[in-house]
């Protein structure tokens, strides 16, 4: 793995078209080596590895400092959903270009005024012969600024409310009637976009799963999103290792308060890894992933923030001046990482929602 990693760090895929394409090239390199998505079956370009083998792959991946996966919406979220709900035609049409990096996917879950309420969908898909006509407004669509296709929920039954009457529809971001507008985020990157749909026509064959049952299909996907696939433990173990190195390099900046926080955060990174291995073992033994996806989401998002907060505490006043610096030690990564981590407790189902889920589905407390 290390031998194939680009020697120059790639520009962020959220910063520019060039950065995005450089990451797409990396996805192609991975795919050619059969490393695009190692848990996928061989027929779609994978290696049919088990989850535990995947975790070990991820260790190697992060240890080598390999680039972030611009392809993650596709390979981790949509791909598994297509394998479960897609027709044979859809599988062959979508999965191979997805694994190859030829089609990069954006997700289009949220709508304005919906927030954490994913079922508050107003965007509609009206049947017109063998097409749906899409109308509406999606927001907080990750990767959409530079991606090729997107997937999202649309109301196919105009009479329906809430989570009923929705369908999961895939659409090209360059189709007529689709307009993408980037959102400037607090770290200055363009990680998200708004998508305006103005009578965009989509073939019925691009609906995934049965009409009107998009919510159930999506929940499988949202479960994956919250779950372990997007947040492999190696990411935090590598960050914890770097944090320890930072603290060792600047012992004069580590007082009791920082030392105490450092100890806790490193233990937490290790606890996260052990917990994910335990879940993977359970899944390997035939278990299913349940509401503990919510406990994971809360834990990794708080861990990520804590790791970067400790780093900024060590860096002190220099921290604010690490905006894209030209530093060999990559100290600027801590600031970037902190800003990115701030989004953790908010996106992919805000932590408040996750706590509700734990309380209601694990502990059986009544709905508010």
């Amino acid at each position: 793995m290390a031998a194939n990693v680009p020697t120059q760090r790639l520009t962020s895929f959220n910063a520019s078209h060039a950065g995005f394409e450089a990451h797409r090239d990396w996805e192609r390199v991975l795919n050619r080596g059969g490393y695009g998505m190692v848990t996928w079956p061989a027929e779609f370009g994978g290696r049919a590895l088990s989850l535990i083998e995947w975790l070990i792959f991820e260790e190697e991946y992060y240890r080598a400092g390999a680039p972030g996966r611009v392809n993650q919406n596709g390979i981790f979220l949509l791909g598994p959903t297509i394998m479960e709900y897609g027709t044979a035609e859809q599988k062959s049409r979508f999965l191979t270009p997805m694994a190859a990096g030829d089609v990069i996917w954006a997700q289009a879950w949220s709508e304005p005024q919906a927030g954490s309420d994913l079922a508050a969908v107003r965007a509609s898909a009206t049947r017109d012969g063998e097409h749906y006509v899409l109308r509406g407004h999606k927001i907080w669509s990750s990767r959409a600024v530079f991606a090729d296709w997107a997937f999202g929920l649309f109301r196919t039954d105009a009479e329906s409310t809430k989570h009923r009457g929705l369908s999961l529809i895939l659409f090209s971001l360059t189709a007529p009637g689709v307009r993408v507008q980037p959102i400037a985020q607090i770290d200055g990157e363009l990680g998200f976009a708004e998508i305006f749909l103005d009578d965009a026509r989509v073939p019925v064959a691009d609906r995934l799963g049965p009409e009107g049952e998009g919510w159930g299909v999506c929940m499988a996907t949202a479960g994956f999103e919250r779950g372990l696939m997007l947040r492999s433990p190696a990411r935090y173990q590598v960050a914890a290792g770097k944090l320890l190195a930072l603290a060792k390099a600047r012992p004069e900046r580590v007082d009791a308060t920082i030392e105490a926080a450092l100890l806790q955060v490193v233990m937490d990174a290790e606890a996260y890894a052990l917990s994910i291995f335990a879940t993977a073992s359970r899944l390997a033994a035939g278990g299913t992933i349940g509401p503990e996806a919510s406990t994971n989401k809360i834990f990794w998002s708080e861990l990520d923030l804590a790791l970067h907060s400790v780093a900024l505490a060590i860096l002190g006043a220099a921290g604010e001046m690490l905006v894209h610096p030209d530093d060999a030690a990559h100290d600027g990564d801590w600031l970037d990482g902190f800003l990115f981590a701030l989004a953790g407790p908010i996106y992919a189902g805000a932590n408040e929602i996750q706590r509700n889920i734990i309380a209601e589905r694990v502990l059986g407390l009544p709905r508010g």
Partner: protein
Amino acid sequence: MDFTFSAEQRQSADMLAGVLGDICSLSHLRTSLKAGAKFDDGRWATLARLELAGIMVSERQGGLGLGAVDVVLLAQACGYAALPEGLAGYIGVTVPLLAELGCDIVLQAILAGGSYVAHQDHGFVVARDAAAASYGVVVDGDRVAVVAADALASVNVASIDPFRRLARLTLPAALQAAPAAIARARERGAVFAAAELVGIAQRAVDIAAAYAKERQQFGKPIGANQAVKHMLASAQVKIEFARPVVYAAAFEADIGSVASRARVSHAKLAAADAALAATRAALQVHGAIGYSWEADVHIFLKRALALSEEWGERPYHRARVQRRLTTYKFAPDTLFALETDHG
């Protein structure tokens, strides 16, 4: 490392949990509390009939020859039941230590089902139920003595946890050095205390969740309040991320390397943290009634307080984790790299 337990391991824990449900329910504890929380001979005899005492004793010595991973779920069940008698430490620490020390006469008395042995290790564990013991194992530093009950001098000490009947045993004159066996005992002690703490934490959350479903206030169950939900959910998150560390520590307890000691200490710290947070959250969810002996939460809170500092106080365990961080490279591939250094 495989994190799944075998069917036998799970069945054995379920069996113990079932027995404890019959003989150590909350109403048993409440009744016992009113009567002074004395040692329950009948309960101890029932538990002895489960023949768990030899679980970690080698087959050569008449035991089952199993390891810490085979006891960790049992310890968790003891915590969940708030079992007053120290079964987990007994079968997981005291008896294996006696076996390692080659105390065959005492061992045979234990395996025959008759004897309880109290265990004191200065700075690590205070003897429990010395009055019911046939023998005492007394450890000081890296030296140990095993003495018969009639030679044991002891002074009772009150604990905040009325079910922990503590005593200080007088140090016998003659102790023999056994550093390796004593060190192993301490690792196991920490692991099983951690497992008990996880059980305590889960029970506190379960009791509070049950209460929150029933108890009405302002015209709805208090569990419908987000504040209650989030308090218990946060406690549950702590439990979920302590449990796998405890299981990993059980797997590694006998290795004795810097890394395995750090794992055991991490387990103890994470479990203590979860238990203290969960019992406090449970108390808060109960409101004023939680602060009375009428509710059962206080039993778990007090046990959590006591076990958090048993088998190594928190600064001791933090120092052991710290030592790993300063001597080891911390990276994904060192997560299970436990065999490399026995320093």
